[in-house]
């Protein structure tokens, strides 16, 4: 059987699958809704602008006993804090009576954290010693706790710099504001991204979701499609014909690829229109990567198909493989945040490379030379899995 006949049969089978999908109105609606829900849920959980908190409920306790009759240090601190806050609206500041009051409020969930000015604050500052401020955090929420610490530390750092500048100028009136800053803070740090703008968490997650959607459509769709035909009895009708079994697999894969690409496109459109994701790289390369993702996963999908007796088994096998892959492949969380042994596992998963490649192209504007490792892994994995899968499928289809 020539390649032309093989392709022709495959296209006919793919056409049949897509016609059935088109005429299954509910299935079609769910096909569109699924990526829509995923994007909306993920997109609105994580805000699209980059990580600046606002109106964090924080309480302030001022235990400063003063020095002499003066509480100038704590008053100056509080004024400075209020000035910065009125510019940035980072915190919703309230007063608390004591440290235990702050802890009560944190436990009740009324505040996210607290600032404690100790009783010897003014005395320390006026005696030329460091004043110690305490930040109380909610340990039940490590991410918010870390954010509060970071925010408050930045604020205190800024205020401390301003106070140090004033001290320098008082000690030597000849020093102007700019020189005093250079004395107090000799290094100034600037950050610059590889691409313009400030990518958000959504820019991070969108490529991973696209890769995952394509993976799911092949790994889920292919076994379920073939198992369903086995159960219903239509597969035998095809198999008794003088058709190459490769045509059946190829046709089904083409059909599922079209579905996956449709869902991937929906995600891409939603990401750019609703969540203002900017695609820095080539759109053609994005779609080429999605197709390569299909090739990478189709072998795995065929193996599941071969061993699954029915749809239920196919779905269970698929879920067993898919869930760990989703969480370990850097789709939702950076791999670098995982323990080293989990990072090693993620490095053998094809989805890791698919989402990495897409992320590099979409967020950093990478070209083909920049993603050769990812391309190589995906091609090799796909080729090996397909080489294993096809004879397994042929053997399993003839019992």
């Amino acid at each position: 059987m020539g390649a032309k006949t093989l392709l022709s049969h495959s296209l006919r089978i793919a056409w049949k699958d897509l016609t059935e999908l088109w005429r299954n109105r509910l299935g079609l609606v769910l096909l569109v809704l699924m990526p829509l829900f995923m994007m909306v849920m993920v997109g609105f959980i994580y805000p699209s602008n980059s990580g600046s908190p606002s109106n964090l409920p924080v309480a302030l306790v001022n235990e400063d006993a003063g020095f002499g009759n003066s509480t100038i240090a704590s008053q100056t601190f509080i004024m400075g804090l209020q000035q910065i806050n009125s510019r940035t609206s980072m915190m919703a500041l309230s007063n608390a009576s004591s440290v235990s009051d702050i802890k009560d409020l944190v436990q009740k969930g009324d505040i996210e954290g607290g600032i404690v000015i100790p009783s010897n604050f003014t005395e320390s500052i006026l005696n030329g010693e460091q004043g110690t401020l305490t930040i109380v955090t909610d340990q039940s929420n490590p991410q918010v706790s870390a954010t509060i610490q970071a925010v408050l530390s930045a604020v205190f750092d800024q205020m401390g710099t301003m106070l140090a500048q004033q001290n320098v100028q008082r000690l030597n009136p000849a020093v102007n504001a700019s020189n005093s800053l250079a004395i107090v803070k000799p290094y100034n740090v600037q950050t610059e991204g590889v691409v313009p703008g400030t990518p958000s968490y959504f820019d991070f997650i969108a490529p991973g979701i696209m890769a995952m959607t394509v993976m799911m459509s092949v790994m889920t769709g292919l076994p379920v499609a073939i198992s369903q035909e086995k159960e219903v009895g239509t597969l035998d009708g095809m198999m008794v014909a003088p058709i190459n079994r490769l045509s059946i697999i190829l046709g089904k894969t083409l059909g599922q690829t079209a579905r996956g690409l449709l869902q991937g496109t929906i995600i891409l459109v939603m990401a750019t229109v609703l969540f203002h994701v900017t695609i820095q790289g080539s759109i053609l390369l994005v779609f080429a990567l999605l197709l390569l993702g299909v090739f990478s996963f189709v072998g795995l999908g065929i193996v599941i198909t071969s061993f699954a007796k029915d749809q239920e088994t196919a779905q269970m096998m698929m879920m067993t493989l898919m869930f760990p892959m989703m969480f370990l492949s850097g789709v939702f969380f950076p791999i670098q945040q995982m323990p080293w042994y989990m990072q090693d596992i993620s490095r053998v998963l094809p989805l890791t490379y698919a989402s990495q490649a897409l992320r590099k192209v979409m967020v950093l504007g990478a070209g083909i030379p920049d993603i050769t490792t990812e391309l190589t892994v995906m091609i090799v994995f796909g080729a090996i899995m397909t080489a294993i899968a096809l004879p397994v499928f042929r053997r399993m289809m003839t019992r």
Partner: protein
Amino acid sequence: MTNLSIEAVNLSKHYGSFVAVSNLNLTIEGSKCVGFLGPNGAGKTTTLKMFTDLIRPSSGEALINGVNVHTEKKKALASVGALIETPEIYPSLTPREALMMIAEIRGVPNAERSQRIEEAVSEVRMEEWIDKRVGKFSKGMKQRICIASAILSDPTVVLLDEPTLGLDPRGMSEVREIIKSLKNKKRLIFMSSHILSEISDVCDEVAMIDHGKLIAYDTIANVAAKVTGGENVVEVELRHPIEPGLMDKINAAFQGIESAEKKGERSFRITFNGGVDAQERILAGIVQMNVGIISYKPASSELEDAYLKLIKDTR
């Protein structure tokens, strides 16, 4: 025309210690309809699946037109139409769409596809449903479309696995008529069933299988004769009630009659030796008696008697 044939050569299928088909040797040649008869679990479907490469034989060969089905599947099945187990057609497609796909897969030339589809659908009498979605069809209608798909490429060999399974009496009757019409076109039809009347009605020959082993293969009459010791039975129906003494008269009038027995007020059975010649002679004689004969046919229980005896002998 190439000689049509279906051949099993030492064909066996084991599932672990369970033997589904045991050393089957069967050669069917020429254009005819052969019934494949056996009880549930006898190995009929397993055998047909081996002839269509849906199941790999444990040993032996399945040949169609001399070509090994397992090693040269495409060549072997190129001229075969098959209906195996309870096939289905895609519910969201119309018969025209589904058959177009099957026509392409079966290698029907593009220019002939539409015509072949319409001919096949016409042959199964489903013309008015050709553009309606299959999901709306009854089981009998789907079965007819499945038969249409089996004959779409105008195959010379047709394999049918219990084609009337699950149909109501009308559906069964319609499918049998369709199969009879298929016989008219120089095809080799191999049809499995466990319904004796269906095999009697439709088939020229019968192959009986039980516990995976072939127990008989011949014409229906010869298979029955082997069991009955060469005796044949005809059932006669008269227009009027049987006159007293008619049975004795018949017993005495014709050579070769074993017995003539009343079955009902207007019907009786004649058991005789001598095959079709005697059958013809007896009919001519009874007609001359002017007793108002309205029906004269081989007893439908002939095959049943043979089947029950043969199956019993293998248990």
